[in-house]
């Protein structure tokens, strides 16, 4: 069955997500939402020597969000939070701008670039990275409500 967006790697990671769930005693955690669909993703991680030692994602979301979290969890282990933030910005640029190239370090996430053709799904692919950013820079203030 041929689908432009749902390539085999995406489907496989969506069906059998790696590092799914929660880390037992996290050093940092964050929950992010996708206001478009109400999806929710929680990141929990432990740090060692200033680098991510273990990260897990609990995803209540679509196949893209699930697969992205799974692929991302494999990529960011051992990286410093600053480097993760840099990569997150580079991934966002690569998904939002069709002319931007994916940096070699993000090559394992290449399957996600199919969302470039589907503007509404970019946020799904970035949800795990939004959660990582919130974990490492939790100061971003939530705006008010009634």
């Amino acid at each position: 069955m041929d689908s432009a967006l749902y390539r085999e790697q995406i489907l496989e990671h969506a069906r059998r997500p790696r590092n799914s769930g929660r880390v037992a005693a996290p050093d940092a955690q964050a929950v992010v939402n996708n206001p478009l669909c109400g999806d929710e993703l929680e990141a929990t991680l432990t740090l060692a020597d200033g680098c991510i030692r273990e990260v897990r994602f609990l995803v209540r979301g679509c196949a893209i969000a699930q697969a992205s979290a799974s692929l991302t969890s494999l990529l960011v282990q051992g990286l410093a939070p600053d480097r993760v933030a840099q990569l997150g910005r580079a991934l966002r640029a690569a998904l939002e701008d069709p002319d931007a190239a994916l940096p070699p370090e993000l090559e394992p996430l290449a399957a996600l670039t199919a969302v470039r053709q589907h503007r509404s799904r970019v946020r799904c692919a970035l949800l795990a990275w939004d959660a990582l950013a919130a974990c490492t820079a939790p100061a971003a203030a939530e705006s008010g409500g009634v």
Partner: protein
Amino acid sequence: MGPERIRQDFPIFQRVINGHPLAYLDNAATTHKPRAVIAALSDFYAHHNANVHRGVHTLAEEATDRYEQARAKAARFLGAASPDEIVFTRGTTDGINLVARAWGRRLRPGDEIVLTELEHHSNIVPWQLAAAGSGARLRYIPLAADGTLDLDAAQRLIGPRTRLLAVTHTSNVLGTVTPLERLIGWAHAQGALVLVDAAQAMLRGRPDVTRLGCDFLACSAHKMFGPMGIGILYGRAALLEALEPVDGGGGMIAVVSEQSSTWRESPARFEAGTPDVAGAVGLSAAMDYVLSLDAAAIAAHEAALTARALAALGGLRGVRVFGPPAGTGRASVVSFAVAGIHPHDVAQVLDEQGVAVRAGHHCCQPLMRRLGETATVRASFAPYTLPEEIDRLAAGIRLAQQIFGHG
């Protein structure tokens, strides 16, 4: 006039989407526009463009005439007693916000606004904002298990503290049609006012405000073949006349002095600034188009489509359909979930087959929580929907189940 003939009036159906003819099943979000509406917009800008209520020149007179003719037509369309009861807004959301801000100033601590669990965010959040400033509180009529309102609970909730009942005519998620006559009777017996959210009603059992006896009613042009960005707020004349404006500016004042101003009569009082005149002209053409259709034939067509969809989806393994059963007067809006596949993924696979549906919370998060879902897939029909498009929907769902390994 069948759907095949109606489709000929809509240029959008010439589109090919991902190699397939467009099967547009997202009519609860917005309907497509017939050539007559597109032409009316273009004709206004090409031949009559001017600001309204401000000039004595010929074009200004023509623009004003067309704008006010649209208002008079809207009054007749909704069964209002007078064009003075019709305020042009940006849409249903804007109309509800206008009432919440203008009438909401009367709320006092202890007052209650009664809503239902079916409401769209646009008929919840404006009341939260009004309540937050006044100490009033919101109460919700719950749903019964079949997706209709729990009327015993409604009777208990509508009481002496109720100042307003704000209720949808037709649920944009479940297709539930609310028993407005009874609810309005109960509210009025308690001295409360009633606002009807008629966003989904204009092609599905269009209400007559006089027969219904509601106090306010809000709707949008774009869900009845008209342009986006314009809508109608109906308000009983005596009520509108007693309300203070919410937006200040040109067109709504009688006299402006340095420290204070006086207002024009309603509805002008509520239309500050240059209105969407072309939008009103397009809305007028949309109302003409709706009136040119055979209402009984359309109702029968949509009932048949709904029954076909409920049967087709109900027959698919792993598909759970929400809302009232077939044959209960439910509207042509069908929400469902596919086991193991996120609604966005279902909608994406359908789009690859040229089938346009909505996936998400449909601006109804409280209702989603009530259903135990964060999102659903929704198919919604219109007079131009073909029965075979429902078959394409069912085939697309089976395809999604194959792709995601749940088939």
